[in-house]
């Protein structure tokens, strides 16, 4: 399993549009990809799951991937987050 922590700096947090980008990215990989915020973990391939977290600006999230392409998955998602959401 690979995991990485990110801080969300985007003004509106992870709302529908960036969530869609994340979900689409996660969907490109075979690995099971999860995102954890506070004490809740959801499947990053599910838009409803991601939005249900209601991740605001300043939040720390942890993305984890398990599977054959977990390395690529984490890197791919990190790119999306850096470009649209934070660091």
């Amino acid at each position, binding site marked *: 399993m690979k995991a990485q922590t990110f801080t969300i700096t985007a003004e509106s947090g992870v709302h529908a549009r960036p969530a869609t980008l994340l979900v*689409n990215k996660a*969907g490109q*990989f*075979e690995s099971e990809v999860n995102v954890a915020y506070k004490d809740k973990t959801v499947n990053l391939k599910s*838009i*409803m799951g991601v939005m249900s977290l*209601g991740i605001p600006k300043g939040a720390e999230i942890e993305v984890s991937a398990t*599977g054959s392409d977990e390395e690529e998955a984490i890197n791919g998602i990190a790119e999306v987050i850096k470009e649209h959401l934070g660091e």
Partner: protein
Amino acid sequence: MKYEQLAEDIIKNVGGKENVNSVVHCITRLRFKLKDEEKAQTEVLKNMDGVVTVMKSGGQYQVVIGNHVPDVYKAVVTEGGFQDAAPVDADGGEKGNLFNRFIDMISGIFTPILGVLAASGMIKGFNALFVAIGWLDQEGGTYQILNAIGDGLFYFLPVLLGYTAMKKFGGTPFLGMVIAMALVYPALEGIPKTGEALYTLFAGTMFESPIYIEFFGIPVILMTYSMSVIPIIVSAFFATKLENFLSKVIPSIIKAFLVPMFTLLIIIPLTFIIIGPIATWASQMLGTATVWIYDLSPVIAGVFLGGFWLVFVMFGLHWGLVPIAINNFAVAGVDPILALVFVHSFALAGAILAVWLKTKNQKTKVLSAPAFISSVFGVTEPAMYGIALPLKKPFIFTIISSAIGGGLLGFFGTKGYVLGGLGIFQFPSLIHPEEGLNLAFWGSVIAVVVGTVLAFVLTYFFGGINKNEAGTVQTEEAAQQAGATTAQGVKNEVLVSPFNGTVKALATIEDAAFSSGALGQGVAIEPAEGKLFSPVSGIVTVLFPTNHAIGITSDEGAEVLIHVGMDTVQLGGKHFTAHTAQGNRVEKGQLLIEFDTDAIKEAGFILTTPVVVTNYDQYEIKVISEQKVNTGDLLLKLKIK
């Protein structure tokens, strides 16, 4: 297909296709129900290319594939010859073939009325008992009124079924009721029995049909629709199709009355013109065939009639035999035909008694008592539609036992001497007026005992009674464990509009994430009013902290996301008021969010709102409404793939 090899390997390693009860898939996984999980090579599967991992949960053996799982699923279904449906269902994957689906549909239509059906059956049965033992006078007012109380539901059964069937098919329930009301309209019911025929169709053939009325010159053969089941269900099915079609083509200003008007004006005459003759001729054929078989061998006729009587009643075909019996009484004073079906209500009672004693399901147990008692008194509907049909096996054992009972009646030459009552009240009608309790009468007692005991024993030991129900419980557990983030066993459903407003194509939204359908598929609505009502009944799985977006997972499994306006997240919750919270249960039509349309527009935001289904890969999604909608209007139809 590039997943054939993978599919073959997966099937091999879950223990072969013989070990698979059913398989469904969600967003990332194949969810198998295996007969024996021990037989699966979990380690081999985990290390297989193309399989992420294996998880066991809630009675399911889950093979995690990734989001191309739909393709792998198709390959697995093809390879293993499994049922390609969404078999996560009450009976644990037994569903699938046409017969089962038909039965599930019929019992689903009856489910909402079972309580009142059982009550009516009891009243009707006891009323007959009180007459039989002389407490009530059949001519008296007390009996007449009690009879109306007990029989009202049965006489007007199509009206109730019109409502429940139409609702099940996704149409407007009251339309189904009105169709049924016309079918059982008393003035029409009276016509075929009075007056002279205008002319006769097919004179001299089996289909000889005197015509009493015409509809714009088209001959109408009326049948008795009261107490019938299938005709109204067929009508409601086509009425739903027509209603959906009309809703699309009729402008919304005049829709409210024109859609029902045309639906009624088209469907009701079609029912009279098409279903009437088909059912009438089929029942005439049945009557002719029965007499022919009886002449050949009373035993075979008994097996045939006794076995299928309950089915004939369901289709209303038994009316073809009643005139033959009445004619036999009139001409010869004795009828051997109707006596052959004597055993069916006892066989059914035997099967229900077994269910009653054995079931651990509280709901089934409660319903079994009145179902059993009314069956003994000859009122079979509660037992049939409430228990035997939904559980399937008791129904099949009833047919077998009733067929054997019918064969015995044929063998002993049991005959009826008057048009008797039903159930145990039919006994007196079988007594020979001169010979008294002859062999034929005692034969009927033997047939009843054999039929009842056989149905009881078969159902008790082979009815699979608690097995079915364990399946239900398991499915529920699995669904709970799956939680909000994975779709589980979705069903067909219809979403209603959450707004008053104008429907647009999703593609017209100026935002790639929504217009491309990447977020989900559905429609965009321009709300005319700042009120959002729930399009489904279910759980609020998402309520974004700024209250501008809400996601609901419906009871049927659809994940619906409504995102009010574009970029409205930037308002930070201003102008939005939520009337529910994440995790709450909501009902269809409940007010969920209020927002200030003017203020939001003034702040420079577009209010066009995507209403999308995010687990769209499981459905074929059809937009029902294309223009102006009101809250509660049918909006999207979701059909499982």
